């Protein structure tokens, strides 16, 4: 045959997203870091039974002063280690559910506006702009102030304030991709709108979406920390932001009280960014290996 014919090699296959992810160092490091935090969050109740907000020790113990409280205690004698473990639970839960809400709303709005365009698209984008003109942190504060500062309301507030970012991104991707030849091909083959959106366009729009999601989770953790810092978070729930907020008053005498929860936040945000970068590479079919 001609040069265009592949050599008759034994059947090979392209590696899966998972294998591509596993040989990506930044994804591996990010995933490991995140797994550590998740384990800590899950085991918080076993490792530190009882309420982390209880006063259990001498106030203002420095880390290492008392082996029973190896990260020290705050001005009220609360165990910092227990706070960080239980705080991981609260922070991650709020961040994950807020991001889920934001991706669901934003993805739906963006996909509809980008794929169909026209009047519907215009209306949806105006709606998007209404949300974008309000400073998002202010919006979160307003929503939380109206409702009760429970975990669910906070997640909803953060989700509602951040979906326009997702919607704009998804819309831009969809607008470009809906004109692609392979989409025209799918339409000429008789595929319906939902099949085209889900199977043709979405997989190609996924990479930027995944990266944004990892940034959104990080942002949600920070917003929740900001709320707690202002004292607007759930007072009965340990969270890193609340620890930061209360530790701020002792920053001169006990800087570890702000540094430790701060480090925890940095750790998670870094893990998510690394994982997002890795996922971006792994989702790129061009970087995937062919195994003969």
């Amino acid at each position, binding site marked *: 045959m001609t040069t265009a014919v*592949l050599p008759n090699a*034994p059947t090979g296959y392209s590696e899966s997203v998972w294998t591509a992810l596993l040989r990506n160092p930044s994804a591996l490091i990010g995933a490991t870091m995140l797994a550590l935090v998740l384990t800590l969050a899950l085991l918080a109740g076993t490792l530190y039974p009882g309420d982390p907000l209880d006063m259990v020790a001498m106030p203002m113990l420095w880390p290492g002063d008392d082996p029973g409280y190896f990260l020290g205690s705050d001005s009220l004698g609360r165990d910092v280690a227990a706070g960080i473990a239980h705080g991981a639970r609260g922070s991650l839960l709020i961040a994950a559910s807020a991001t889920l809400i934001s991706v669901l709303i934003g993805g739906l709005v963006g996909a509809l506006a980008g794929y169909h365009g026209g009047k519907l698209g215009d209306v949806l984008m105006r709606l998007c702009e209404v949300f974008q003109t309000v400073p998002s942190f202010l919006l979160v504060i307003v929503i939380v102030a109206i409702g009760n500062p429970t975990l669910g309301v906070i997640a909803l507030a953060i989700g509602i304030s951040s979906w326009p970012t997702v919607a704009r991104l998804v819309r831009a991707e969809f607008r470009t991709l809906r004109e692609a030849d392979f989409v025209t*091909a799918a339409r000429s*083959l008789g595929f319906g709108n939902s099949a085209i959106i889900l199977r043709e366009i979405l997989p*190609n729009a996924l990479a930027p979406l995944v990266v944004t999601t990892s940034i959104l989770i990080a942002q949600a953790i920070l917003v929740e920390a900001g709320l707690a810092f202002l004292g607007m978070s759930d007072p009965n729930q340990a969270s890193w932001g609340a620890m930061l907020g209360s530790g701020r008053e002792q920053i001169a005498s006990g800087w570890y009280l702000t540094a430790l929860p701060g480090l925890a936040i940095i750790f998670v945000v870094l893990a998510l960014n690394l994982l997002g970068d890795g996922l971006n590479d792994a989702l790129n079919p061009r970087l995937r290996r062919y195994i003969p």
Partner: protein
Amino acid sequence: MSLLDVRGLRVSYDNADAVKDLSFTLQAGETLALVGESGCGKSTTALALMGLLPDNARLGGQVLFEGRDLLVMPPRQRRQLQGSAQGMIFQDPLSSLNPVLTLGEQVSEILLTHTDLTRRQAWQRAEELFALVQLPRPAAHLREYPQHLSGGQRQRVVIAMAIACQPRLLIADEPTTALDVSVQAQILELLARLRGELGMGLLLITHDLGVVGQHADRVIVMHDGHALESRSTRDLIEHPQHPYSRGLLQASLGAEHKQHYLSNRLAEINVERQPEQATRYGVKSTLYAPGRQPRAPTGNPALLKVSDLTTGYGNSTVLDRISLEVGERESVGLVGESGCGKSTLSRTLLRLLPARSGTIEFDGRDIASLKDESLLGWRRQVQMIFQDPYAALNPRHSVESILDRVQRLHGQTDPGQRQQARFAVLDAVGLARSSLARLPHQFSGGQRQRIGIARALILKPRLVICDEPVSALDVSTQAQILNLLVELREELGLSYLFISHDLSVVRYFADRILVMEQGQIVEQATPQTLWHSPRHPYTRRLLAAIPGAAAPEPAPQPVSGLRFAVGW
């Protein structure tokens, strides 16, 4: 001393060699053509000469420009040569101009960088340059943005920028590939004239031997980074020695070709790469195997019948009362320049765009009346092959899933039968069965086009709309794909509507040719008739514009064509 003397140039990326031991010279006032298919190293050579290669490229050998070795020159000196003594023209005139600056700003910026002119003088020179490249309204164009100009005019602007500082070496990398046929000829003529007037050495890089025949003094044929043959143009075209050059010449469909699919196959180049051995080249026979000779269509009742079709976007009308027919087992060629409505027509025929008025009948049924089940059944019978093999396949799906999804959508429930059908269609389009597990980016352009054809054929359609199926491909790949389409027509009894801007391809492939201008069909004839006695002036213009057409030899222009002083 030669203007350019390249000695043993080597370029490699990571561990792959892009250019291997290339040597040539170029004199002032001479045109040298580098010819080869994509990936042969011709563009890499151009970028190496201009000093534009990315950082991970490793260079070896010598490139002497007026006696000075460019490869060891300090970057500062090198930059002074770029854009002044050396000019370069890129393939795509749209992406090589900055869309947010006016054309005047872009041209005068070059002059301000490399000369001592004041802003006002630079603006004046820019106007003179625009006159020199024969833009219709030089003064007005200076204040316009790139998107206000047509493709050919943009390429003239790019040329004006390249010659702004009177370069001694001009490198043109596929300067006409992105342009319409009629515009191509004008641009090539302009380049030839400017080369004479300014006494430049012109390095013309192209995949199209038709371009070379008219405009180059000498040719270097490249493949896999090697120079296979380096001869004077006339010599090469009349007596090609290397089998690869011979194959390229035979596969290229110039203006003078008299080939037609009913009488012969197109020549295919056979390249056998073997590790540790020299690559072997051959040309496959152009004769049909006994019994495989294609038969002419019999003129049965029309399969597709379009009457008075009008359609458009918004307020503009793109197709204006078009009527055409495609018979059973017939290949109908549709020719026209970009923007004439070819693509709109194919989208309307596939019912992706609604028709404003007029009817499209397929096998006696009006397709506008089809709904749900019957629409899906009709879609099975009409398929499309796309121009750009890179854009037409979803990069995230393997070949298997691309084909399988289509099969399942159209109600093929038995997985075993689906697999058999996939194997059969891959065999038919000449791809290995092991291709199923691969992703589109792991294939070459020609192979991808085969996947696109397989996707169109998996449903066993009756009519295939080919929208420029070979215009994004190399000459030799083009021959393979055209041969394949002819074979498939015989095997499966297909009808084709073959849309192209390239008259010489359509001449080979079509039983009947329609010529389209601005949304209307202006002429309809057999290839023979069209070639010998075109009736419509537009058809005559298209024919005259094919590279290699017997155009009147342009008289040598006097040097006085240069209106501005030399030596600023």
